[in-house]
């Protein structure tokens, strides 16, 4: 099998790579380092000015790295160099850095507070335009997010906002080469089935640790629902429209296939739909009618409030947990969701949240021949071990070295 490494400088000229190590990690992007056997000819002129290789390019000039092992090729997203260690013995050195997206997320100080809109979508949009990158978190476009709180704690790094959003939304991100580097957000799926193809491994090590383990979780639901209507199964037919019997801007149904309207949509064609999916939160106008979209059994609608909400003061639930870590890290702080959660929703979120906080306490380390096709989130299996998902991948290629190392976190009940 062949092994091939191509590293191009920002001018598109190849650099003499001896060996290379790249790591891709959940919520951390890429880190890379390459050992150069000698100083490329074009840079020797720098010596006359006492400057080094890094001075030849702008700080965010991008390098291109492509790895090949056997039939598989891996092209990394655009990379920036952060460090150049020159070896005056061999004439070469070690170039190392991160990918362009993480560079832009982590390097700048910025002001988010001027963005008055603090929904997750607005924040991500602001960050994406600031770093000239594409990034979208699905399903959580209307989530309010306490930017001011994060700002007040003195952190000015955009990655802090993104990580906080991910922790609350139970999502993760990875940096993809597409579009010249992009943040791809995806839901943290701890119930995923084992992925089809499994790599070959030379060593498999399972680790269990109790340190920093979260052992208690309190959920406090503070919703104050003042109204309720019971819809019997005879009325729970698709297309049925009924008045609620009260007006409310905040509604939750135990049956999700219900929409809410400010008038009877069968009678008034200009009636506005103010909520769908079985809930409405802080609707611009009060709902007075509901419509059953899909036939189901009996259900209950609860609602409250005909005035707009002061954000964060009503209809929220608060999750506190005892991590025992002082001071609390951003992801350990209590957080508030302005939703009308169903019990199943809360349970699923709680389990995912707990898993994410405890994932480092039950891990597996894998090492084997280069496996460049392996993606983050891949569910690995091994006889006698719980299924686990890939959280970190390191490829090392060079003379005498050809390996892929993986850190994965145990899934399912093995983790609790």
């Amino acid at each position: 099998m062949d092994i091939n490494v191509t590293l191009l400088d920002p001018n598109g000229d190849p650099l003499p790579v001896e060996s290379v190590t790249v790591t891709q990690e959940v919520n951390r992007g890429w880190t890379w380092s390459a050992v150069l056997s000698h100083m490329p000819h074009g840079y020797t002129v720098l010596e006359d000015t006492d400057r080094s290789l890094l001075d030849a390019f702008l700080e965010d000039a991008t390098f291109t790295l492509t790895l090949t092992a056997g039939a598989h090729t891996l092209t990394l997203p655009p990379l920036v160099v952060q460090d150049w260690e020159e070896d005056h013995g061999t004439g070469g050195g070690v170039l190392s850095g991160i990918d362009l997206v993480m560079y832009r997320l982590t390097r700048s100080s910025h002001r988010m507070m001027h963005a008055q809109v603090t929904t997750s979508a607005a924040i991500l949009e602001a960050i994406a335009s600031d770093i000239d990158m594409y990034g979208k978190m699905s399903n959580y476009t209307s989530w309010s997010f306490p930017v001011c709180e994060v700002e007040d704690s003195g952190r000015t790094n955009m990655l802090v906002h993104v990580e906080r959003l991910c922790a609350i939304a139970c999502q993760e991100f990875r940096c993809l080469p597409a579009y010249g580097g992009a943040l791809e957000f995806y839901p943290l799926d701890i119930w995923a089935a084992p992925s089809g193809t499994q790599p070959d491994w030379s060593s498999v090590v399972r680790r269990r640790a109790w340190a920093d383990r979260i052992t208690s979780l309190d959920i406090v639901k503070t919703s104050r629902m003042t109204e309720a209507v019971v819809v019997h199964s005879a009325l729970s037919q698709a297309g049925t429209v009924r008045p609620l019997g009260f007006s409310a801007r905040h509604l939750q149904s135990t049956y999700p296939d219900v929409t809410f309207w400010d008038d009877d949509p069968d009678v008034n064609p200009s009636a506005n739909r103010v909520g769908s999916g079985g809930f409405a939160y802080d609707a611009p106008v009060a709902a007075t009618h509901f419509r059953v979209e899909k036939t189901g059994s009996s259900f209950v609608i609860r609602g409250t409030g005909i005035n707009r909400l002061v954000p964060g003061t009503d209809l929220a639930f608060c999750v506190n947990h005892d991590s025992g870590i002082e001071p609390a890290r951003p992801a350990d702080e209590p957080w508030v969701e302005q939703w009308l959660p169903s019990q199943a929703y809360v349970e699923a979120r709680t389990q995912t949240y707990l898993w994410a906080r405890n994932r480092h306490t039950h891990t597996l380390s894998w090492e084997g021949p280069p496996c460049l096709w392996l993606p983050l989130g891949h569910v690995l299996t091994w006889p006698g071990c719980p299924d686990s998902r890939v959280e970190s991948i390191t490829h090392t290629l060079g003379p005498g070295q050809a390996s892929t190392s993986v850190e994965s976190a145990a899934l399912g009940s093995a983790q609790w």
Partner: protein
Amino acid sequence: MATWEYIGQSQVEKDLVIRKTLSRTAGSYGRSYVYDVQAPEVTHTLQTEVGLTDAEAASLRALVLAQDGTASVTDNAGRTWAGRVTGLSLEATPGSDLWRATLSLRSQADEV
């Protein structure tokens, strides 16, 4: 170069990366992955057919000690061997004041 005759010998060595893997099922071997990463190392070894005098041995030693020393020699069959001088072994021949020499050369075919 010296006027005595050499007996030539050539050796080619490959450094393969061999990764053996574990088997998922009992009673079977795991697969092996072999990566051919590095160019083969080609070494020529030339041995003197007759003994060298002290002066001739000293001149060979000087060749090895010199930086970037290269040599091109013809063996007793008329073949030409060329490369970087990487080693010299001198062995005194008992019962005489001559030396037997072994010269090692590294092929320069893969050099940039």
